[in-house]
């Protein structure tokens, strides 16, 4: 070990000394950083972290929860009315219009559902009822639901569910919601005629890993850290034109973590698709020892 000697410094706070200047600079810097005037941080590895506006907090959440509930309620009678008209032979000619109306009401309803979920999930208020369920079966079920929806017809979804253990401990409704979000997301960002694969594996003891891979528009590296942030789609991601509130992935990740799982994403960059990795806990009696 070598001892280092320090040259003698002038008194630390002497006016005009380098240290005094540096301190003043640091102080000014700190003041600006905490003044809400900064909107992004560049990390030493070149990642950009956009900061949330300072006021994005509880009162807004409460307002959103109330608003989304209030806005959803009137949609239900409208939906029923549309269905009634659709069943009526006298309006047979109007069926395409009624179908269009139904689809739009459903979209609206889902957007509002996202908002409601965001407020409960974001505040960790969601109630989960974990049970042993077959994740493979859930994947097939969700795929079935998505197939019935518009825009899915041209996308090929390949299943490669080869995990030998697939009974996980999860809330079945919420698990389906996560999968639905991942699948819809993959479909949304795939070009017509594109393909999506869903694979499963038991990579580590006690876990099941599901990977949803698309070959769509991909995600630029600087946007990866933002992907699971609420409202990021509209605000900063280039996927703005794809609609939605940008809450789906935030909700999916929160729900995965609430049941002891993880949700991560990887992408090679723009135009190179993306892979979402969902890891879940196997139900205890199935875990190999």
């Amino acid at each position, binding site marked *: 070990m070598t001892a280092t000697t320090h040259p003698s410094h002038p008194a630390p706070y002497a006016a005009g000394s380098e240290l005094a200047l540096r301190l003043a600079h640091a102080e*000014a810097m700190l003041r600006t950083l905490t003044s809400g005037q*900064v*909107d992004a*941080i*560049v990390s030493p590895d*070149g990642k950009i972290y956009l900061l949330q506006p300072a006021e994005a907090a509880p009162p807004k959440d409460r307002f959103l929860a109330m608003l989304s509930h209030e806005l959803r309620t009137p949609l239900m009678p409208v939906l029923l009315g549309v269905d009634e008209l659709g069943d009526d032979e006298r309006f047979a000619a109007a069926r395409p219009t009624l179908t269009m109306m139904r689809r739009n009401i459903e979209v609206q309803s889902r957007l509002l559902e996202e908002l409601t979920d965001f407020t409960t999930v974001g505040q960790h208020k969601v109630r989960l009822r974990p049970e042993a369920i077959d994740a493979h079966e859930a994947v097939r079920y969700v795929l079935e639901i998505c197939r019935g929806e518009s825009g899915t017809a041209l996308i090929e979804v390949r299943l490669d569910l080869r995990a030998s253990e697939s009974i996980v401990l999860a809330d079945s409704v919420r698990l389906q919601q996560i999968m639905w979000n991942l699948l819809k997301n993959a479909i949304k960002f795939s070009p017509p005629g594109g393909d999506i694969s869903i694979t499963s594996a038991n990579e580590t003891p006690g876990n099941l890993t599901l990977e949803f891979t698309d070959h769509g528009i991909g995600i630029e590296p*600087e946007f990866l850290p933002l992907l699971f942030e609420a409202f990021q789609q509209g605000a*900063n991601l280039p996927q703005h034109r794809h609609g939605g509130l940008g809450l789906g992935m935030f909700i999916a990740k929160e729900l995965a973590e609430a049941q002891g799982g993880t949700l991560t994403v990887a992408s090679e960059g723009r135009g190179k698709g993306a892979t979402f990795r969902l890891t879940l806990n196997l139900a205890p009696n199935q875990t190999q020892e």
Partner: protein
Amino acid sequence: VNDALNAGEHPKGAYVFRLYLAGGAPNSVRALANLYAICRKHFPGSHRIEVIDVLKEPLRALAAAVFVTPTVVKVSPAPEQQIIGNLSEEEAVLRALGLPQKENE
């Protein structure tokens, strides 16, 4: 944001600024507008503003030791200096960058 060059008529003694911002983030947009206003008022015809979007060019930010946005770097006249924030306080900006203040009013 892209077309942010305002080439000075008098390259000699020109004021050159480099503004690092994050796309259309609120403070970034404000900083750009404020910097333009300051330049138009104090250095009309002899300033140049180069805009660097760190979302597109993060490495340039790193190379210049810019760690937050918005950051404005006064490239010339020397010495090079940088300040952060949305540049809403004109006087403080000019003082911090060691620039002359024109008393217009």
